[in-house]
C-alpha cells in the first residue's frame, strides 16, 4: 500500500510518500503506526505521540482501530489547521 505523510509528519520522516508492505500481523491503524515507528529514528520521532496522529484511508478519516487490510492509500498527518 501507499503511505503518504503531511505537514510535520512529512518533515520528520523526510519524505512525502512511499510504498510500504506491512506484515500480516499488522491489522489496524494503531498496529501500523507501531510498525512504522520501528523503521528508524525519523519514524520514531514522527510517531512519538501516536495519539495526536490523524489517519485517512483512501481519503477518508479513520480511527486508530480501523482495519487496514483493504487500504490502497493510507495518510498520516497532524490535526488539521485549515480554514
Amino acid at each position, binding site marked *: 500500500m501507499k503511505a503518504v505523510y503531511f*505537514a510535520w509528519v512529512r518533515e520528520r520522516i523526510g519524505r512525502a510518500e512511499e510504498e510500504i508492505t506491512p506484515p500480516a500481523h499488522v491489522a489496524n491503524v494503531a498496529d501500523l503506526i507501531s510498525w512504522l515507528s520501528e523503521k528508524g529514528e525519523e519514524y520514531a520521532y514522527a510517531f512519538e505521540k501516536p495519539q495526536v496522529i490523524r489517519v485517512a484511508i483512501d481519503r477518508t478519516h479513520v480511527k486508530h482501530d480501523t482495519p487496514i487490510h483493504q487500504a490502497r492509500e493510507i*495518510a498520516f498527518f497532524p490535526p*488539521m*489547521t*485549515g*480554514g
Partner: protein
Amino acid sequence: MTQQAKISIQQETFDLAQEMQSLAQGRADVGAIVTFTGLCRDENAALSALELEHYPGMAEEEIARVVSQAQARWPLLGVTVIHRYGRMAPGDQIVLVITASSHRLAAFESAEFLMDYLKTRAPFWKKEHRSDGTSGDWVSAKDHDDHAAARWEQI
C-alpha cells in the same frame, strides 16, 4: 429545492463579489446570504507568510462531504466553499464560505457549521514563516475548534 454547490481548492485568490453574484443573480427565492472570509492574520508583525499545505484529492472530497451534511440539515439554495493553498501574506484571503437560503437563520447556522467542520476535518495545515527570516512553527490545532465542531453533534 435546488441543491447547488461549488467547491474549489485553488492556489489563486478569489473574488467574493463575483462568487456571490454567480450564486444569487437572477433569483428571487434567496432572502439571506451569509459569507465568511478567513484572512491571513499577523497581529504582532512577526509573520512574513503562511504556507498552506493540503492533501490533494482528499481536501475536495472531505469538503464535499461536509457540504452534503449542511445541505441535508438546512434548506440551502446555494453553497460555495473556496479554500486556498500555497503561500499567503498577512492580509491575504485564505478561505471563503457562502450560504444562501430563504431565511437568515439557515444561512447563518450553515455557514458557521461549514467553518467549524472545515477547521477540524478538511486536510489543510498552516506553517508560519517569520519576518525575522527564521522558519516558524506549524500552527497547532486548537481545542476550541474541536469544541466548536462538537456542538453541532448535540443539537
